[in-house]
């Protein structure tokens, strides 16, 4: 314990380094800082994620894209986290971690392909991505991360595992079983909770009577910390420290990133039914991208001109990537049967043959 002593969530502490004005405050002793180059990478990644979302939304409105879940406003969480990890560290996402996925080298067209409704979008060889596919049953995947972390220790590697979830997912029984096992096994896993304040229409206050998500960790014998999830520097620092700790075999950490779902739950959702525009407006002030832009401008790492160029590149890339998707062959009848088992059993061969007629 003690790594986050100065940020005990039970005392209302929150780790935040880059404020809304884009001013970077000196971190506590020993907390790592993103360098300028990294800040730039983070910026490109987040802007790309934003552009991907915006294009997906308009594609959905055009009837070219089925239900799609947006990352708008939450980009700093998975972006900062994945920048703090090694490429071979395991990444077990929920479904709002586009930034992190891009950093893992997932091509945009494959990402779009998933949401387009093609299983090829989740074809992720572990040796290439060290990343699990999107898990639709909320809260059920974190325990996989614990198993992966156990396996890596067993195999004698020092790879750590980060798993993401929303604050709503922390209500599911499997969250509890995952945390309890991680504590007992001292598993090298980081539970990153994106507390975006909403689970579809349910606000965080009604999700749990606990004042914070972070303090739930103490009931499992490990540390939890609350951070500003829209602050790329805070995310990077917290995950980096937690990862070092995990690598040293000192066990799990729970990080609650305070963030906000600026958009609808998915393209099928209408938030005006359950929340006020004012709240959303307030959070727009805290947009992780604007904040980083101000920082980059102040530091003269980027000019406004550069930023426009970056945004345009991203928009173009998004559009081109989706065109690839629309040109992609749909899965065949065989594909529907081929991947149930390594070797197709006779009963499936027969059902397939019958369908072919």
């Amino acid at each position, binding site marked *: 314990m003690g790594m986050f002593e100065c940020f005990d969530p039970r005392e209302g502490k929150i780790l935040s380094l880059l404020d809304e004005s884009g001013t970077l405050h000196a971190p506590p002793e020993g907390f790592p800082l993103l360098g300028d180059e990294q800040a730039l990478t983070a910026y490109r990644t987040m802007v790309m994620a934003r552009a991907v979302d915006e294009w997906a939304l308009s594609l959905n409105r055009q009837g070219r894209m*089925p*239900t799609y879940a947006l990352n708008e406003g939450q980009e700093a969480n998975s972006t900062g986290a994945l920048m703090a990890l090694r490429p071979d560290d395991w990444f077990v996402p929920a479904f709002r971690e586009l930034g992190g996925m891009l950093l893992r080298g997932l091509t945009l067209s494959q990402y779009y392909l998933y949401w*387009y*409704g*093609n*299983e090829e979008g989740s074809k992720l060889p572990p040796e290439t991505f060290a990343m699990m596919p999107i898990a*639709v*049953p*909320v*809260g*059920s995947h974190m325990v996989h991360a614990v198993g992966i972390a156990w396996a890596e220790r067993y195999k004698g590697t020092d790879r750590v595992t980060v798993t993401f979830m929303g604050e*709503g*997912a922390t*209500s*599911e*029984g*499997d969250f509890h079983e995952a945390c309890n096992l991680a504590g007992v096994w001292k598993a090298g896993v980081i539970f990153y909770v994106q507390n975006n304040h909403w*689970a*579809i*229409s*349910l606000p965080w206050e*009604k*999700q*749990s009577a606990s004042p914070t998500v972070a303090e739930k960790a103490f009931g499992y014998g490990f540390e939890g910390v609350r951070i500003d999830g829209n602050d790329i520097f805070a995310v990077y620092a917290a995950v980096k420290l937690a990862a070092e700790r995990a690598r040293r075999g000192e066990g799990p950490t729970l990080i609650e990133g305070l963030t906000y779902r600026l958009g609808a739950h998915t393209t*099928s*959702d209408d938030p005006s*039914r*359950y929340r006020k525009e004012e709240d959303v407006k307030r959070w727009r002030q805290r947009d992780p991208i604007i904040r980083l832009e101000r920082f980059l401008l102040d530091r003269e790492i980027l000019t406004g001109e550069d930023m426009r160029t970056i945004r345009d590149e991203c928009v173009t890339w998004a559009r081109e990537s989706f065109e690839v998707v629309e040109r992609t062959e*749909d*899965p*065949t*009848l065989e*594909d*529907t*049967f081929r991947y*149930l088992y390594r070797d197709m059993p006779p*009963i*499936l061969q027969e*059902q*397939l043959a019958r*369908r072919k007629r």
Partner: protein
Amino acid sequence: MKVLTLLEAVTDGLRSEMAADQSVVVFGQDVGVEGGVFRATAGLQKDFGESRCFDTPLVESGIVGAAIGMAVAGLRPVVEIQFCGFALSAFNQIANHAARIRNRTRGAMTAPLVIRTPYGGGIRAPEHHSESIEALFGHTPGLKVVVPSTPHDAKGLLISAIRDPDPVIFLEPARAYRAIRQQVPEQSYALEIGKAKVEAPGDDLTLVSYGAQMIEARQARAALAAEGRSVELIDLRTIYPFDAGTVVESVRKTGRLLVVHEGPQSFGVASELIATALDKAFDALLAPPARLTGPDVIVPLPRGERHYLISAEQVIAEARKVLAYEP
């Protein structure tokens, strides 16, 4: 009478039972303020108050488990699971408690709760949003499993489910939610659980289906009629306890049986109906009873779903085979 979609009929059924019985409470994820992801509970919180219709955290097992406690304490909880695929996390509560409390206590306690959940494919949804798991529930002693295929049945069967003294899994065909509009009585009415419906009489073939698949079954019957083949169309409506009598009677008359449904073939509903028909109508069979079901695979994502769903053409083709069979 008013014209309603199946979805509106569900809301109407909930509404009329909530008005009639104070012990009926409706809860689940996003059913309150939001009115449900499909809007099945729209307006209920506004009209009946937060204590009668409310949102819960993300806890499928907890929702069902709490409903069991409420039911034992004398209430009539009606819970919603957003998609039936997510009901699997509540399967322990459903099968090991809800289904068993009456037998466990020799009738001293009961769990008269209703679990409403959309099922089935064809809605271009992500993974886990298109399953058909009625046979899992049907194989679990102590449960009743109901699947309406029309607005009229949806309201009447839901009302019966809420009044039923035992736990009922109420599977709502998502693909049919807005597909059909139908005249539905204003007032409250109950349709008997455990009774199939002969939707249209016929002499040459007994065609059994349920839920959204009834849409293609009806189209197939019409097409075959045009060819001069007379098909008796049965809407099973209750998966358990299923109405063997109605099916067998029809098969004894036609001598030919085709069961069509979306869910996986092995250990599925069609296999059960065929085994049952055999028990009781073997001597009357003119052709081997046939199954046209989903294969034993995972429902594909939208771009491949057409390979899984059963079209009217496929029903027609299969029916022709059964009709053509020469003993």
